[in-house]
């Protein structure tokens, strides 16, 4: 019995010793980066797996939603453009009924940003892909309740920057020296005692494009409606898009 134990202990010692000796040690590391390009063949089984997804997306992307007789680019006109006006008007038309249903108030104006128009629209058929091109991001519509002071800060921002940030239901005329000539919201001048509901994107609400006046919003209402989906829904409702540049934001020489 005793010798048996002794044997086991010897064996255990040996095992421990062996495991120490055989402990693998890291001796060398090599690193490289391999380009994925056309020198590699495509794995057939994976391609076949992807194909139905790809086809479904393509079919949806190519689905005709509306039509435009003329091409629209954001740089077409200095302070407002057909495409920018269309986008801001679409937000007003589509978001206002939702906002009214939920909060029993109406949107007074819309402000988007020039940089947020990510693509132009070519003459011809407007498809789902068009909506993805002009709005590839996931930003949502949000409504900020601003007091008269913040609305004035917004106007000053627009006057000072002189960039064709899309607006709707508002009219702003500035002088050559970027001073404000006049401003109307809902067809009326600013009432100092009133608060205004401005629909915009959650990106701008978070201070995007330095629109810091949104930081002073009394309240923010999120509509849980992606801007891209809003444009898709808007296109579906319009047989033909006939937006054009107009007098909503102009400089008076």
């Amino acid at each position, binding site marked *: 019995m005793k010798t048996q134990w002794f044997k086991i202990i010897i064996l255990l010692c040996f095992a421990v010793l062996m495991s120490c000796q055989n402990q693998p040690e890291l*001796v060398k*590391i090599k690193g490289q980066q391999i380009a994925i390009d056309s020198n590699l063949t495509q794995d057939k089984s994976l391609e076949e797996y992807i194909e139905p997804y790809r086809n479904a997306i393509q079919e949806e992307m190519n689905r005709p939603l509306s039509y435009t007789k003329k091409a629209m680019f954001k740089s077409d006109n200095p302070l407002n453009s057909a495409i920018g006006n269309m986008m801001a008007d679409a937000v007003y038309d589509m978001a206002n009924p939702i906002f009214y249903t939920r909060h029993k108030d109406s949107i007074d104006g819309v402000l988007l940003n020039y940089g947020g128009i990510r693509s132009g629209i070519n003459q011809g058929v407007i498809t789902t892909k068009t909506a993805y091109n002009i709005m590839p991001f996931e930003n949502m519509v949000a409504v900020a309740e601003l007091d008269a002071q913040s609305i004035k800060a917004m106007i000053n921002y627009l006057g000072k920057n002189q960039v064709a940030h899309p607006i709707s239901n508002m009219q702003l005329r500035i002088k050559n020296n970027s001073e404000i000539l006049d401003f109307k919201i809902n067809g009326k001048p600013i009432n100092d005692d009133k608060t205004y509901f401005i629909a915009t994107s959650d990106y701008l609400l978070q201070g995007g494009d330095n629109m810091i006046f949104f930081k002073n919003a009394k309240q923010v209402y999120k509509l849980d409606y992606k801007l891209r989906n809003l444009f898709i829904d808007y296109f579906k409702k319009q047989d033909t898009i006939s937006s054009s540049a107009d007098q909503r934001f102009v400089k008076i020489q």
Partner: protein
Amino acid sequence: MKRRTFINQTIKVSSVIGLSSVVNPTIWQKSYDKHITILHTNDVHSHIDPFPNNHRKFPNRGGVSRRYNLIQQIKAENPNTLLLDAGDAFQGTPYFNFYGGELEYKLMSKMGYQASTIGNHEFDNGIDNITAQLQHAKFDLLNANYDLSNTSLDGLVKPYQIYEVDGISIGVFGLGIELEGLVSKNLYGETKYINPIEIAQDQVKILKQDHQCDLVICLSHLGYQYQSDKISDIQLAKSTKDIDLIIGGHTHTFLDQPSKVVNQAGKITLINQVGWAGLNLGRMDFYFNKINGKGVKDVVIEV
């Protein structure tokens, strides 16, 4: 002095490789007892198809089915391979907009990924969407510095996982970026961010000391480096020890070669990141020898 020895060794071994690979490659391969290959991607951003031929920067580059072909080639050469991802698999093409990440996770599973981590864009359709998409993932989603206990991901995300490959135990843990200011609160919900450096030290202790891992790898979505003092992979490497490799993401950094950072123990922690969109596959090869109690020599790093 030590550094000089290290360089000398590197040169010596490199020249031996050059010679032996010409003379007899099989003899050379046999001279290592173990060989582990780590393949990795980051910030693939739903780029399942290659960029189009008319793309300004990356014409006809990338593509999942090409990547899979390459992975299979490498695995045929060395079956002891792990395939890892450092987050932001989601968002960037209509594949995500239409299917919410389903195809991304299904393809990663088919390609044999073992683990990924949670990038900020994983939250783009909300945290509950990550939970929903996990049913398509046959790999581990690892994160150690998000407290997910009050979210639908509770119990579905592990801080770390240990993979045994050819007798080598490889501890992998995940780290995520601060979400506040980067992701809308309504998307990340009750996810609580915890300082990744402290968490990393805890994780390394668990993996290296408690579990005696031979290799410790961090899947990080912190970002490579910042002008500000925002926590980055470089900072993580400098202020910890015993992490062998940080596979980074978030900043879409293209590195000519993996970065070598001197860590708290005076040893090297490697950081690698391979850009984004599946344009590249990172490959790190780790070679092990059974050493007969003569003490560990410096690791030769050829990057």
